[in-house]
């Protein structure tokens, strides 16, 4: 795995890799090092092609250590799979079917047959960017974002699937609805999904 280590201010490093899969592998390795005590860091924030390490005492030393490191090629498999019950009843199903070039009912079948993984979180507490669909199923954001997407909306944008943890404005294509509670700060853990979690969508009721 080839890595580019970019300094970010005086206390952070941004480690850039070539793909989303490599970012997930790097993230898994950094979590392992933190757990075993060989890495002391405030935040480990994975994203599309990078992992941010924030709150470092000596970023320069870690940067030279990391560039000398060979990372394992694939992440260890997360232990559990979270099943999210879903009704494929979103208002953008027809548009997504048109982008994919399939009949409308095929969208639900293809989506529910895919195993996803949370690549990273962001946008709102508990919002995961889920990867797993092949590249040919990428869809654009809606030209005009909705002012209010309901909580529990299952949505697509680019190569990602996401579930809105609470009602918010949004430009993603809505394909379904789940009753799962993505974020509850009175619960431990508050977030149902965190980076690395495996996710399946399980159709319930009519699709």
């Amino acid at each position, binding site marked *: 795995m080839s890595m580019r280590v*970019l*300094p*970010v*201010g*005086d*206390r*952070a490093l*941004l480690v850039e890799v070539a793909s989303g899969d490599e970012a997930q592998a790097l993230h898994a390795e950094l979590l392992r090092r933190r757990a075993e005590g060989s890495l002391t860091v*405030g*935040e*480990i*924030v*994975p*994203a*599309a*092609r*990078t*992992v*941010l390490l*924030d*709150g470092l005492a000596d970023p*320069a030393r870690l940067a030279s250590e990391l560039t000398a490191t060979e990372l394992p090629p694939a992440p260890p498999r997360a232990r559990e799979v979270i099943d999210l019950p879903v009704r494929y009843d979103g208002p953008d199903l027809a548009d997504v079917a048109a982008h994919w070039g399939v009949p409308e009912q095929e969208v639900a079948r293809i989506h529910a047959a895919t195993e996803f993984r949370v690549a*990273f*979180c*962001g*946008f*709102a*507490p*508990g*919002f995961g*960017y889920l990867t797993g669909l092949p590249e040919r199923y990428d869809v654009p954001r809606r030209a005009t974002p909705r002012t209010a997407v309901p909580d529990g909306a299952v949505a697509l944008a680019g190569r990602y699937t996401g579930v809105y943890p*609470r009602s918010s404005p949004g430009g993603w294509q809505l394909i379904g609805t789940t009753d799962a509670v993505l974020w509850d*700060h009175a619960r431990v853990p*508050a*977030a149902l999904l*965190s*980076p690395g979690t495996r996710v399946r969508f399980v159709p319930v009721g009519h699709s």
Partner: protein
Amino acid sequence: MTDRALVVVRAGALTTVQDRGRPGHAHLGVPRSGALDGPAAALVNRLVGNPPETAVLETTLNGCAVRPRSTVTMAVGGAPCPVTVDGRPVAWGTPVRVPAGSVLDVGSAVSGVRSYLAVTGGVAVEPVLGSRSTDLLSGLGPPPLTDGTVLPLGHPVGPHARVDVAPHPAPPAELVLHVTLGPRDDWFTREAIRTFTSRPYRVSAASNRIGLRTEGPALERALPGELPSEGMVLGAVQVPPDGRPVIFLADHPTTGGYPVIAVVRTLDLPPTAQAAPGTPVRFIPVRRR
């Protein structure tokens, strides 16, 4: 019902509960939040005998007024402003005894933006992920105060400080921000880097707890297209499509897709909380330590 409570008489333009925030959850999309002017919040806490991490009130431009249900000690700091108890002037920046039922009024900022009000025992709303801070981006923590809000207070832990005047930095007449370039300075033209580090900017009125927006010369990109979302740090200087730098403050999003041209030195961030719209801003490049 306990009488260890504070009734909000006048909420002001935007008054929120703030402590040191909730760092450590960025990977779940949770902003750090916390008092924008951390040293001011710690100082007013010290004045009333609270540990520095105790929750205080952070006001915006026109202060707020509160009525304690029991006699408490309060202190106002941060942006200088007139302070009154039942209409009579009292000192700013020192501990003030406020009798039960009296109204302490934090007036409009004379200079700066955000005043901080500490109360003995602290504001004791229910913490969320270990913090009582209001997070305006994600909505975690208590909502901004409204008139009539009742805030529970914690129990005093120590005696208040015995000082007449606490030393307090003045709000900046000019915001001088030392920055280290990167991680995405290579997304900008050489000319843009020169402009960024030599031309004056001004604080925009569109600034808030999420980011300090600036007005000034637009920075031109060398690379077109979109940057895949990546993790963001406090003090990141992000450049959106309009080319005007935005400095990420406490409620900043945890990931973002606009390139970060530079990062502001941590020491220089508290003054950003007190830079009123129109304040000149200069970015001074420094070598990484």
